[in-house]
């Protein structure tokens, strides 16, 4: 009985602690991701002003930055850079794309999300689509 009692308390404590820490970490991941996307856009805009044009593609952006694209912070690979000119419905000139499994500590959808972060000339800033 005492063993069962100890196990139940241990299990409950671990579960609660794990749940609290996960939510806290997930909120932090979302913050870091937005910060990274915001910072990367600022870098791209600096490159645009220096070169008079945007990097043609991700390979050129990586070469110009001198380092690989940053991670998405969610363990779903790297952030990618895509040009939008001429693509249907995308009125800006580029966007950054990555995947996320949750926002602010909540999953909202079991399959995760595709995040599109647009450059300053687009009519939208942020768009999140279900995966």
């Amino acid at each position: 009985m005492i063993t069962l009692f100890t196990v139940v308390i241990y299990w409950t404590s671990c579960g609660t602690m794990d749940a609290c820490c996960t939510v806290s970490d997930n909120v932090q991941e979302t913050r870091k991701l937005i910060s990274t996307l915001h910072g990367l856009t600022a870098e791209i805009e600096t490159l645009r002003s220096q070169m008079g044009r945007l990097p043609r593609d991700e390979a050129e952006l990586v070469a110009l930055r001198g380092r690989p694209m940053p991670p998405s912070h969610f363990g779903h690979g790297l952030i990618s850079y895509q040009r939008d000119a001429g693509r249907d419905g995308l009125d800006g000139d580029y966007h950054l794309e990555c995947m996320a499994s949750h926002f602010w500590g909540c999953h909202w959808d079991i399959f995760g999300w595709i995040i599109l972060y647009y450059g300053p000339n687009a009519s939208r800033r942020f768009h999140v689509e279900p995966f």
Partner: protein
Amino acid sequence: MGKIVSAQEEQETVPANRSATEIAGHNVAWVGWMVLFGTIGILTTMGVQWLVEEWCERDRFRQSQTWMQDQMGQLRRGEINCLINPDPRFLVELLADTACAAKVRDLYLGGDLSDPRLGRVRELPNLKCIVFLFATQQSAFLERLHGMSTIEELSFDHTLLARNDVNHIGSFPRLRMLRAEALSELSDLEGLRGHPLLERLSLSAPEADNKTIPVFQSMPHLRDLTVGVRYDEKANPGSVSFEELLAKALPRCKCRVWQDGR
């Protein structure tokens, strides 16, 4: 048959000198112990859970404080010009550093926005853009910012807006760009009627509503309008599309209509 045999065996194991009353008393004692242990167990578990939650809250507090300090450091160094999901408890720290607060141009918010302390973001002197991402309870927050004169851009992603929210949005006198992905209906836009500076509008609503065209016409600077509506298979195939109506009504505005679910 097997059951009968086992009952007989059980009867044989009971000492002959123990009466039925003693056996019943023994069982009641067992139930009593179980209830006592159960109650102690539940109370202890609740106590431990409370302690663990307290510990987690302290951890969250530290994490949020560190996050705010990191962001303030980046703002001071000019590395960023945005504030991401600030913990309302530390907004005072940011606002106390006027040089740092003056550098905040963009604000990203999500989750529960009901905390009244969040309303202090209206003291950020150069705040121009707010992005709402998976936000809840945004009505109270928008009410606290009512009429804020620095706001130029608002974006709502996965944040359901009601008519009252749009009324508050319409009160931002310098608003130039609005993206509202989840309006309950287009007629809720009445709060934006005659907005003096709105240039770019990107909306999404369940269905097209021709009655909103005069609202769009009443905005003198509107030059870019994107409307996403749910595809309606019952729409008359021969009728003039909403996009055509918009193009005709707003000749100087670039109009696009999206149909979801096609």
